[in-house]
């Protein structure tokens, strides 16, 4: 499982997210209009996933685990309108 609905307020991206995850993420986002995206566990993500994040403009909790995502894509998504979540919580990377 690479896209996980942690709770109604957080959707997690974990490991390597393939193209199909785009649809999964979209459904989660539509179902949880207030949820933020946490991609701190994400190593890499397919362009389809990146596109969904970009369209959503949701709060994006980073930095992602993958160095390419961290160095180049995360800043691009920030410029694209994905905010840093307002109240940084304690890091709680917890596998289900």
């Amino acid at each position, binding site marked *: 499982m690479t896209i996980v609905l942690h709770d109604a307020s957080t959707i997690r991206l974990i490991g390597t997210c393939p*193209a199909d995850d*785009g649809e999964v993420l*979209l459904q989660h*986002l539509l179902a949880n209009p207030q949820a933020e995206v946490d991609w701190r566990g994400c190593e*890499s993500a*397919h362009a*389809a996933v990146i596109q969904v994040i*970009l*369209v959503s403009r949701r709060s994006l909790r980073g930095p992602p685990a993958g160095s390419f995502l961290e160095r180049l894509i995360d800043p691009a998504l920030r410029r694209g309108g994905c905010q840093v979540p307002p109240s940084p919580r304690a890091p709680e990377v917890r596998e289900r």
Partner: protein
Amino acid sequence: MMNEFLEQFLIESRDLVAQGTDDLMALAENPNDRERLDSAFRAFHTLKGAAGIVEFGAMMRTLHAAEDILASLRSSEEPINPDTLDEFLTCLDVTSRWLDAMQSTGEAPSTAEADADDMIVRLMGSGGAAEVSPASAPRDDAWIERLSIVAGNHFTGHRTALRYIPSSDAFFQGPDPMNVVAALPHPMIIDVVLSDPTISLESMSTFSCNLEIVALMEASGEQVRAALLNAPGKVEVRELASTVISPSEEVRATARTLIEAQLLLLQESDVDGLVGRQASAGRTAVNALLYLGRSELAANVERAIATTNDENSPDILIAAVEQALSGIGQPEPPNNSSRSSPVAPRALRVDMDRIDALVKLTGELIVVKNAIGHTAKLFQENEDPRVIMATLRTQHALFERLATELQNAVLRIRVLPLRSAFRRFPRLIREIAGSVGKTVRLIIEGESTEADATIVDALFEPLLHVLRNAVDHGIESPERRASAGKSAMGTLILRARRDADTVKIEVEDDGGGIDVDRVRAVACARGIATAETLAAMTDAEALGLVFAVGFSTASTVSNLSGRGVGMDSVRTAVERLGGQVTLESQPGIGTRVGLVIPFSLMMTRVMTVEVAGQAFGLPLDNVVETAIVPRDRIVPIGAGRAFVLRDQTVPLIDLADTLGIQHTDRLCPDQAKVVVALAAGQIGAIEVDRLGERMDVMLTPMEGLLNGMKGVSGTTLLGDGRVLIVLDVQEILS
């Protein structure tokens, strides 16, 4: 080297540009003309196709954008907005410039991509943009600009910018676009945006790619292209070393402050570690200059750093930085290659009828050739010489008629209507007038008048200059016109007509006219003529001074006419074509500039003269009259000689002396045979031994080593096989 393929492309594209311009101009007159709109659409469409064939990407995408807008205009019922039309016309102008560059260099100009970006942005902003589907047109071609903002100070030096729009099925076909991007060589900045920003989570499809990726890399264009070989979609790679991004004013100011700070640092001489500080301050200045795209100034500073390191004194570096600082304010040195003079068209489209006429004439000529063969046979068979003579006479007459017809037919091949030079004027005038806050309407008459293609081409520049002058200096400001009781809108008439062997063109304005007293004052102030000479001049003669080199009456140099060229350049250009310029002006009523140009450059009417047993030709256009002057009326004046002809003093030149030919004995020692000639408004007489006949000749210009020969305009063959040298009267007289 230009290949045939490219040549064909240029001919065709020029035709299409002309067609498109015609259609757009007609649309401007009548915005509801659907036929013209369709025709313009076809012209743009075909042009785009042609660009595709020669793989001229910039031209292709520009025309594609225009075509899309035209297509949407075609499907809408609304009349076309004049601003949109303007952008289309500008688009054709830009294309035309590219074609010019291609014609002279054989390849697409290096600025084409940047021009295309600008043009597409303009087209998109022109009003038709709303209907354009984002998939078919580049939505935002200011991507480089965007990238430069994102990249900040990384955006300089040898970098490559990439714009990658994966095809819409890229998520499930071929490699993941993210992997493609991750594999880019040395990426510095990547920006990912939606190519259609309006999509929402509710409306989006996760199966269709809607991304536009731009990236800046520290790699060559080749490396970048290699990394994108298998990526499906639209890829645009631009090496930034060749495309200098013009920095904004703000950036310029920052860079300037930075350089000034380095200068202060350098001037504090009593600091430890001076050398190290010098070098680092110098380097900072170099970087700032490079960032501004001023590599030539940066190179200077860099050299100064090297010298300073050797000599341990900051003076040289300080001087170099100071120089660079003042250099930033100056405009960049012009790129010479882009200003090269236009090349005359090497190929011509010819009406089929004109070719047919030639074929028919050739047939008739063969008949005459056979008839002459027959006559020769009669002669061989000892036929009565009187019969042979009569036959030969008839055949000669026939042959002469055919030769003349053939000559005319050949000349007609090179003939074009002036429309092809005139059609760009209405828009240019509108633009020029707008930029100086005047409204001017241009009336064109006789645009179907024809002239030799070379002449039509060469007329554009001087005419534009005359028109520009009329708008800039002739037509008054709307307020002044109103107070003079004229309509606020100025009127310019461009009139052309054929008159015998010449084409007459007039540019008439209803402006304030030329102030002759001011012309006199300026001419005196600029040392063009002395006060006495000026006082002796008639008003008409004084007016002619505006054609003098170095004359310009505008007290403020405007960006239109103040380009360092005055009316003298117009006169030079027209005279180079064998024509003349005249000027009439009435204060408060207007000014009229007249151009008289020969219809064809190839045919010249000459008069033959003889000196020392040698024949020369003088162009009849220059000849005023011939006269026989008693020698006792020729008086020495200064170093030369002169005589009085009908109350006018005419300087006399001996042709043999001028050409450096040994004199033979004069036939009539007490009389001089002279040809009175007029060139460049200057009258003079040329003494010759014998006056000959008039004839029409095909002038062959001097070539190779003799090309620059003074006083000679060309040669032609005489009936007896001798070479007749045709003289350039203007150069002989001066």
